[in-house]
């Protein structure tokens, strides 16, 4: 494993994630019949934030470090994903490592949110935790079916060894749902609800720290989408050259993101209890899928 194999995907996600966000804003603007910001707007915002000196509500270390940990975790999660033929840090069972490292972004978000005596940040943290709690079983079932089907828990191995079956399509559907929820897209953005709790944890962040945190959250969304995209693209492109697979993955992620944004634009935000109820319903449905899968279909 050469160093560049890590550096390339890392810089890739760091660069593309904000652009993707910019594209999302553009798409949303189009749905809303307006011109919208330039595609690079999120980058402009980010650079502007990163160059700003923050104002800190506390000296607490967890508050200060959380954004960096979040960013590092999100980026680290990217290193176990497959990019075309390249998967920088592949190993058996890396799916769970991926999952937990992605969860670390949430953990940083939550701990930072609870690190202040502020009901806004606390509510954000609280909701994020409940969201994670309620979506985890769905995610688990999706992974379980994929594992049953592919006999592996290695991210770069699993997609290539899936056998077509009804349950696998449903499993990818579940995965998509889980990614959607985990990504905090409307209507599941209760944790960062701006009009309710002022972006939750981020309410108290400013300047550079805010920039880093926002970046982390964007990267997290991106890696989640990339995960989903890989599970869709890789099984269909066995034998393709690596660069082609990579381009297809990129296209798939873009397509998924556009779909996600369109869904986002046509929904109101669910209250956290409604979101939990919805996730539970999906979980119960997913148990049926698991049953189907364990029957070998």
């Amino acid at each position, binding site marked *: 494993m050469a160093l560049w194999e890590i550096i390339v995907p890392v810089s890739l996600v760091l660069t593309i994630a904000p652009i993707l966000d910019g594209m999302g804003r553009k798409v949303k*603007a*189009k749905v809303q*019949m*307006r*011109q*919208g910001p330039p595609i690079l707007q999120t980058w402009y915002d980010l650079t502007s934030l990163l160059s700003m000196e923050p104002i800190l509500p506390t000296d607490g270390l967890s508050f200060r470090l959380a954004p960096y940990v979040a960013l590092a975790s999100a980026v680290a999660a990217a290193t176990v994903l497959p990019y075309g033929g390249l998967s920088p840090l592949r190993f058996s069972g890396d799916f769970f490592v991926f999952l937990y490292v992605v969860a670390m972004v949430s953990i940083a978000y939550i701990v930072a949110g609870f690190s202040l005596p502020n009901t806004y940040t606390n509510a954000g943290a609280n909701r994020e935790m409940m969201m994670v709690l309620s979506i985890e079983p769905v995610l688990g079932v999706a992974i379980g079916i994929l594992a049953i089907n592919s006999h592996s828990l290695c991210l770069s191995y699993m997609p290539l060894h899936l056998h077509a079956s009804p349950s696998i399509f449903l499993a990818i559907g579940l995965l998509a749902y889980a990614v959607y929820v985990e990504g905090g897209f409307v209507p599941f953005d209760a944790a960062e609800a701006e009009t309710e709790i002022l972006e939750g944890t981020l309410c108290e962040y400013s300047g550079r720290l805010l920039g880093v945190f926002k970046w982390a959250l964007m990267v997290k969304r991106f890696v989640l989408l990339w995960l989903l995209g890989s599970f869709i693209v890789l099984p269909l492109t066995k034998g393709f050259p690596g660069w082609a697979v990579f381009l297809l993955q990129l296209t798939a992620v873009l397509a998924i993101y556009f779909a996600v944004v369109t869904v986002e634009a046509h929904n109101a935000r669910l209250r956290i209890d409604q979101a939990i109820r919805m996730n539970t319903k999906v979980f119960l449905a997913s148990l049926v899928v698991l049953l189907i899968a364990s029957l070998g279909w």
Partner: protein
Amino acid sequence: MGVTLRYPFVSIEAPPEYRGVPHIDPELCIGCGACVNACPPDALMRIDDLKNGTREIVLDIGRCIRCARCEEVCPTGAVKMTGRFEVASLDRRDHVEVVRLRLVRCEACGEYTDYTERQVVKALQILPEEEYDAEEIKAYSRICRRCRRKLSALGAIEASRRFAP
């Protein structure tokens, strides 16, 4: 299908009915101060400098609520609501419009009066000439209130002398 206007990258005009920023036409303003009296937020001010004999009609469009009362009351049509609205600035001084007029100097005592040269001209224009002696009025118009009162008093004394032998 977006509906977003290209403004400000293209210039646009406000509709003709729009009550934009008011503007005082210095050619028409007679300095009567009707607008100052009518202005609800005191965006218009009349500042007399009796030393130098000038009157300033000051319009601060940063205070103006654009109700068009000044336009409504202006007897000469000097104050007009324009279609202009692009008046943002980092410097509040940019928002001030000053029209400086000359006050009439009293021919009797040499002090400045509290009305302008142009007010006199305008008043004479309106005056139904057939009912007044234009020349007398013209003469009186250049004398300040105090002197006028004095003149009247003197005139009264004169008259009483005449009628009371």
